[in-house]
């Protein structure tokens, strides 16, 4: 079959966007994960401190804490991270006006991600198990993805409009808002808006989107038919959402990666450096790095010294002799 490049553009956009997203996010995670150990800089409450977490206490409250068995509560972390991720709890507590806009935006995103996941699940199951298509499970899935998709687009659009309005009008935010911040929100508004128009006017049961995703999964680049505009909107919508998907991890909007490390590697990183531990071995390695700081009191002119050398010398005392 002859493939018209124009008509397969949405497929190509989707493949490229997914690839860029996965590679960019994986790269960000890799870069953070391979960063050297830093000094402890935890901030209480630390969620895995069990009962003590309720008031912000730590194992350092124990007499001779290093002799006590140390437990970390994964349930405690989940209990904090769950509401934080789903409902933006910290923002709700500390910045209610922003939360009123940010929550529908983010929750809309989660619903759209859920809808997309259901679409792919349905397409993959149908491809490997033909009897699934049209089965009761498939029908339930279709209902779920339709609700998620419709609600997600409405919620996301309302949130993005609210955020844009606040960014443009708030005294607190105006001076910190850059053209890129405006562009990003407008990008979301346009992408969600077009998708919502497509949903509301020609594809209220997500069947056309479902067919597209099925083709995507089967690598069947079937041209979207010309039907007086309906599929054109779908094509435009797919391209816009694909561009958005590829764009997000290239910007600070990939803060979901940073947030994971901010909590787990910094705020809650209270692992003590006990003698003979793996941490202690890392300390030795890091102290052997060269120091490049140039201020006079560092005494680092000439041959560069290591952190261990700089830390264990005392120029103030030797100058006084």
């Amino acid at each position: 079959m002859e493939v018209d490049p124009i008509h397969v553009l949405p497929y190509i956009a989707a493949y490229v966007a997914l690839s860029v997203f996965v590679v960019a996010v994986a790269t960000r995670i890799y870069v953070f994960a391979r960063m050297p150990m830093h000094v402890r800089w935890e901030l209480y409450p630390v969620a895995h401190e069990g009962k003590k977490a309720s008031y912000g206490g730590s194992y350092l409250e124990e007499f001779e804490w290093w002799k006590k068995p140390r437990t970390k509560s994964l349930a405690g972390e989940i209990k904090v991270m769950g509401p934080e991720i789903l409902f933006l709890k910290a923002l709700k507590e500390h910045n209610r006006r922003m939360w009123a806009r940010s929550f529908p935006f983010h929750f809309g995103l989660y619903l759209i991600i859920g809808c997309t996941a259901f679409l792919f699940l349905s397409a993959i199951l149908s491809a490997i198990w033909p009897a699934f298509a049209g089965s009761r499970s498939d029908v339930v899935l279709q209902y779920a993805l339709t609700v998620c998709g419709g609600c997600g687009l409405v919620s996301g659009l309302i949130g993005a409009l609210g955020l844009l309005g606040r960014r443009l009008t708030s005294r607190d935010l105006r001076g910190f808002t850059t053209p890129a911040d405006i562009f990003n929100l407008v990008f979301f508004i346009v992408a969600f808006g077009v998708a919502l128009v497509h949903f509301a006017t020609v594809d209220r049961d997500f069947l056309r989107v479902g067919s597209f995703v099925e083709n995507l999964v089967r690598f069947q680049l079937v041209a979207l038919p010309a039907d007086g505009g309906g599929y054109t909107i779908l094509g435009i919508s797919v391209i816009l959402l694909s561009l958005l998907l590829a764009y997000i991890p290239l910007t600070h909007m990939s803060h979901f990666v940073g947030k994971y490390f901010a909590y787990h590697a910094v705020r809650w990183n209270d692992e003590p450096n006990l003698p003979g531990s793996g941490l202690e071995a890392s300390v030795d390695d890091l102290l052997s790095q060269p120091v490049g700081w140039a201020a006079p009191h560092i005494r680092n002119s000439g041959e560069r010294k290591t952190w261990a050398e700089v830390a264990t010398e005392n120029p103030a005392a030797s100058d006084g002799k």
Partner: protein
Amino acid sequence: MDKNCVNPHHGTEPESPIQPAAIATSCGPLADIPIAQQIPLPPPFDQLDDEPAATPLSDEARLRYESDLDGTIAVNIPRPETKLEEAELVQSFLSGMKKLFEEENNWIFLQPLIISAEYCAKCQTCSDACHIYEESGESEIYRPSFRSEIFRRIYHKYIKGEAEWVHGEIDLNWKAIARLIELSYRCNLCRRCAQTCPLGVDNALLAREIRKIASQEMGITVKELHEAGSVLQQKVGSSTGMNDLVVKDNFEFIDEDTTERTGITVESPFDKVGADILLIHNAGEIMAWPENPGAFSLLFNAAGLSWTLSSELAAYDSINYGVWYDDVQFARTAMLHMQAAKNLGVKKIVLGECGHAHKALTVIADRVLAGDLNIPRESGMTVLLDIVRSGKIKFDKSRNDFPVTMHDPCNMVRLMGIVSPQREIIKAVVPEERFREMEPHGVENYCCGGGSGFAIMSGHNFDEWRHRFSGRRKFRQVLETFKDEPMDKEHPKYVCAPCSNCKGQLRDIIKHYDAWEKAGIGYGGLVELMVNAMVDVEPGYIDWEWH
């Protein structure tokens, strides 16, 4: 007036706040906050007209030092004499900023720094958490994200070469850098703002990183923290100037005085090899509040602990000012502390009532110690609680029959999670109905206003700035906590602050407002309350009038 700068006004706050880009382009001070713009304190200090007047900077100071931020000076940055000198300083700043983001030069904070440099959503959630911003009447330059945003814009434009339309406009000149360095000393590093950030961005960390560029690359430091602080400590043993002979002399006096006041013979052991505990006090206690180390000695002896003090270089002064501005100075002091412990062969170091020393040696130094220097460090709070729980000392709560509140030192509480031991001790030595918490308290507390070195910084009119802005929230909290008590000297009220720096700040702000004379507000440490309640000592260990 400099032809290259524009009038900062920027409009009249609060309608049109100053923009971050103005750091490089505005003329004159970026903020000039009249007392009338501040929120009145609770009674009996609720008349703004009665507040001590603000003293302007002297002409000499303004001519000699960079002073175009807010009418005070913390850093004493000399004004460059030539354009060439300015250009070199700008380059030096950029060189330092580049090093901050290099693994070998800043592995110590690289990951937290990058998170804070890359992921701020500019939602301003942090603003309301900052006591300085709030007490200034929401002056834009004290917004915690203001300096961070400038830092980020410089980083993205001049280090990463990224576009201004993405990260925001900024120009770089000496004026901007001088102001930014000064602005890094308008933050107590209490990290209350970081606690509220949904993304984990840490404005206090960025303030400290700016201080690091100034100190570690440009050699620009605050005199009280560097020459008269960490350098002096490393040179003679203490930032107070005490050498080993003087500290022993002072302890002889402390022992005699404590013996006289309590009726129990007190001896503080020095350099006892093989003791279980090396106790390190903030030397400020020894000089300014000798009843505190005296109380420690009495309690440790009464509990039968095996302990010693050290007269080795720096080991009788737990302070580590590097924690506020310089990683190298921090590491050097930490090593001196640990070396002394190793030489004495102790099983652990116990830290007296000093918040930043707690955090410095227990938490931050944790990942720069290895081998035989990796000796356990423990808070004095848990050791004191263990003494209380052991029942070896009998307390009579009725001896502390006055209103008491607890100030939570940020370093000990929010940054270490040591919250409950000091409260359990209070329960054991203060009648329940006499203790009341501040709101908020615990890990959500407000800084005393002296954090990050401010308590010892008083050059020019900086102490007034400290009282008017950074310390005002804590004073407000104290007044609100005691609002149901008669506010006069005949009804003394005790603010318990188990931290030397916090006590210094409380002392200064109480003096600033004459709050002992006018409202009977006093302060002190935790061990003083304990000894005051000891059945075996003569009553009246707490001396209200002395401070």
